[in-house]
């Protein structure tokens, strides 16, 4: 164990920039210097105080923002239908709530987060011992891309809204910059989750790739064994299935090494008589000792050079240990996934709620803006369709990416069972079948599914429900809006008509008739049907 430990890079090594940024803006409270030197996340009292201070600062600034922009909303309340006003009021604090959820959860979880990455490191070591390496280098790239995307989106939304839609002659308008803080902090927090989830997915995929490699190696081994280059499918030949292959393989390897005798002719003459177990085992251990860990996603280091194929699957007792270990690691990764989901369950729930509400509200306000109605000042980005599209892409992109990644991770974990069965069927050995059946049941019972506090699972089926919900609510809101507008128009025209009717009545002095006329007109005006 001691000789492999330095070989495995800790996952957190890739998180340097992200941690620094998160620390500065107050997403994570952990100790910066310890992270720098030892790549571990440890509790820190100073960090906690700093983070609470940042939280208080943000809340204060945001309230100031709301207060300074609320002047415009007073006129909105006076002129507009109450529906728009109430929706605006209801959604005023949702961004802040989301941010506070993230930060408070991070405070509570500051010890557990470090443990999580420690567990991932242990998993990496165990995987390394099973000769399946996980490549972490693309994670740093991924983090960088996500950070750049976040900054581009935030800056674009902020600046275009500020230039286009905010009156920037007043110095108080600079407070508008605060409006981007909650979403930015939320996104940073979600990048942590997304990248860690991606790392888990990679580990699942590494396990699957190892199992698939066993299969392809065994298939090659069998084609080599039958000595028939023309037959692509070794399983159809019945003769090769009846005999235990491991002894033959090693013997043929030996012959090949020693004399370069033609394998096909040898098999034709020999067949089942070559069962010499002790030699086979010694050779096998020799073959194992020179083997080096493979790089991930490379099936065979040099398939052309190594003419004598080896297959681990042909030795059931040895492969049993390997399969057992891999399944245990799989279980451990599932457990880590569940723990990670637990850590982020409240932030994800608040993000999904935020995404749903903001998506609906933004579209509704866009509708209001196209009808030349005024909208709450905090949602002024809806006045411009292009900015609205960007906002919607950003918000929904965040939510959908998390859902998509959770779904993919869950799929990758289920894929392990499939690969395991492939191993079993290809090897066709009774002992191996027993192992595979046992492990397969274990995998079936132990799958990882991500959910938001148990309210809904994070898979693509949720999208179906959410998109249906958004459409329905949008139509209902627009209907209410239309009804309110028509009622208001009717009242206005009624008032104006009232005056003229009164004038007419006074001028012509036909009191009775004018009142009937008045009744007729009011009834027609008050029912906003079409003709």
């Amino acid at each position, binding site marked *: 164990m001691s000789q492999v430990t330095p070989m495995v890079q800790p996952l957190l090594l890739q998180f340097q920039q992200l941690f620094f940024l998160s620390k500065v803006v107050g997403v994570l409270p952990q100790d910066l210097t310890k992270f720098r030197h030892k790549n571990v996340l440890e509790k820190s009292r100073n960090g906690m105080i700093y983070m609470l201070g940042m939280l208080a600062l943000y809340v204060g600034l945001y309230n100031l923002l709301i207060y300074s922009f609320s002047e415009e909303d007073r006129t909105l309340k006076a002129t507009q239908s109450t529906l728009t006003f109430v929706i605006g009021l209801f959604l005023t604090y949702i961004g802040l709530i989301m941010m506070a959820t993230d930060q408070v959860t991070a405070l509570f979880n500051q010890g557990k987060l470090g443990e999580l990455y420690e567990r991932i490191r242990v998993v990496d070591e165990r995987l390394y011992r099973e000769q399946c390496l996980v490549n972490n280098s693309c994670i740093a790239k991924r983090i960088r891309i996500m950070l750049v995307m976040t900054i581009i989106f935030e800056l674009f939304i902020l600046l275009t809204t500020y230039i286009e839609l905010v009156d920037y002659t007043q110095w108080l308008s600079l407070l508008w910059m605060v409006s981007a803080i909650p979403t930015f902090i939320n996104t940073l927090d979600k990048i942590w989750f997304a990248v860690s989830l991606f790392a888990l997915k990679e580990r699942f995929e590494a396990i699957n790739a190892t199992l698939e490699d066993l299969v392809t190696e065994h298939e090659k081994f069998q084609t080599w064994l039958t000595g028939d280059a023309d037959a692509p499918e070794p399983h159809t030949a019945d003769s090769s299935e009846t005999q235990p292959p491991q002894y033959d393989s090693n013997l043929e390897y030996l012959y090949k090494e020693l004399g370069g005798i033609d394998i096909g002719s040898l098999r034709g003459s020999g067949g089942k008589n070559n069962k010499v177990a002790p030699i086979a085992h010694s050779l096998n251990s020799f073959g194992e000792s020179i083997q080096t860990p493979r790089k991930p996603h490379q099936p065979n280091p040099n398939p052309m050079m190594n003419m004598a194929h080896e297959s681990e699957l042909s030795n059931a007792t040895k492969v049993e240990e390997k399969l057992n270990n891999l399944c245990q690691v799989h279980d451990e990764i599932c457990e880590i996934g569940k723990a990670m989901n637990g850590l982020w369950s409240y932030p994800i729930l608040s993000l999904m709620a935020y995404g749903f509400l903001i998506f609906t509200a933004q579209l509704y306000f866009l509708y209001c803006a196209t009808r030349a109605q005024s909208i709450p000042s905090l949602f002024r980005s809806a006045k411009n369709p292009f900015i609205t599209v960007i906002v919607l892409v950003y918000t929904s992109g965040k939510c959908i990416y998390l859902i998509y990644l959770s779904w993919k991770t869950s799929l990758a974990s289920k894929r392990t*069972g*499939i690969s395991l*069965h492939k191993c079993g*069927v290809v090897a066709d050995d009774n002992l191996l079948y027993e192992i*595979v059946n046992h492990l397969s049941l274990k995998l079936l019972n132990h799958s990882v599914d991500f959910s938001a506090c148990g309210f809904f699972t994070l898979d693509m089926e949720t999208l*179906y429900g959410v998109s249906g919900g958004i459409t329905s609510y949008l139509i209902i809101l627009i*209907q209410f809006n239309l009804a309110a507008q028509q009622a208001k128009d009717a009242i206005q025209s009624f008032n104006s008509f009232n005056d003229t009717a009164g004038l007419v009545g006074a001028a012509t002095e036909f009191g009775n008739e004018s009142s009937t006329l008045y009744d007729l007109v009011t009834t027609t005006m008050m029912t906003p049907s079409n003709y």
Partner: protein
Amino acid sequence: MGYHIDRVLRLHLRFYQLLGLHGLPLPGDAHPSRKAWLLQFWAGCLLTGFSTIAFVCLTSDDDYLYHDDAFSCFNDGMKYGFAEMAVLSIYGETLPGQRYHLARFWQLYGARTPPAGTLRQQLVQHRRYLIQLYGLVFLELVLLCLFVSVQDISHHILLFWSTFQPFVFLVHLRNTQFLLHLELLRQQLVQLECELGLLVEYSSFASVAASFAGFEDYLRRRVREKQLMYERIYELCISFSRAFSYSVLTVLLMIYIRITVDCYFLYYTIYMSIDNIDYYMLMPAVMQIPAFLYASQSCMQMVPRIAYQLHNILTTSSALSLQIQNFSLQILHEPVRIDCLGIIVLDNHLLTRIACAVCTYIIFTVQLMPKLSGSSI
């Protein structure tokens, strides 16, 4: 290109190639790589053409969309928008990255099926697909002819239908392409089930009448063969859903949106007493979704049948029972499940949900109608 397909399939794949839907050269083509390049170029041309039509229709001031009130105009625009999305995803899937999965599908299919003998056998084998394809196309053409002969064509109707109908044709033919692939998948599953049924009969016969030495081992090997076969079928299913991942979603979505919008217009034309019977053109679209969902459901229903047949095999030796257990677990791990991007399982349950959703939206929009038209008058 080491696989064989029979003549009926070949003919239909050529047809899809002509429409740019099947981006692979057929086995036996001379210059496969040049052909692939040509097909891709052709798909690119078609995509540009369709996109230009959609762009012109959406931006032009002419009477492509129904301009009398804003909501109807928005609805018409939505039809074009979703049709354009469908076309984009359809031709996007002929790009090399996606084409790989389609190639894998045909390789897996062609490698393990012996081509049926005579033309008559082939026709019988693919009858489900052929009936659906020609039935749907025939219905569509008949309705179009009737529409042209009965309806007096106004400027708006001429512009709208001459631009929108190509999208409809393309999307519906894509749907029949899905039907073809699903039908092939179903044939494989049915064949597996039949072969397992034979094994069940052997085993019961052997248990009561005559058995021979090594029979159990023979049975075990046969079960293992079936296991390998099932594994291949599962990969077939996976490569189908990967090859058509986005276009299944967008094609269904486009047909669904069109049905919803046209139901609204059906009510609208009657309500406003407009002389227009183009809502009859909705019929083929209404048939498309059930045809697809039925095909995918009939694939998915085969899996429990296979498991049932598997457990009917009578076992006497532990080795055979172990093998059967293994197969059973494998089926549990590899369920044939056709869903578009994991969003929803495509079975008849979805049909009821779609019907419910269409009704709900119709009620919403019908409620909305007097208010909208009242404000525009």
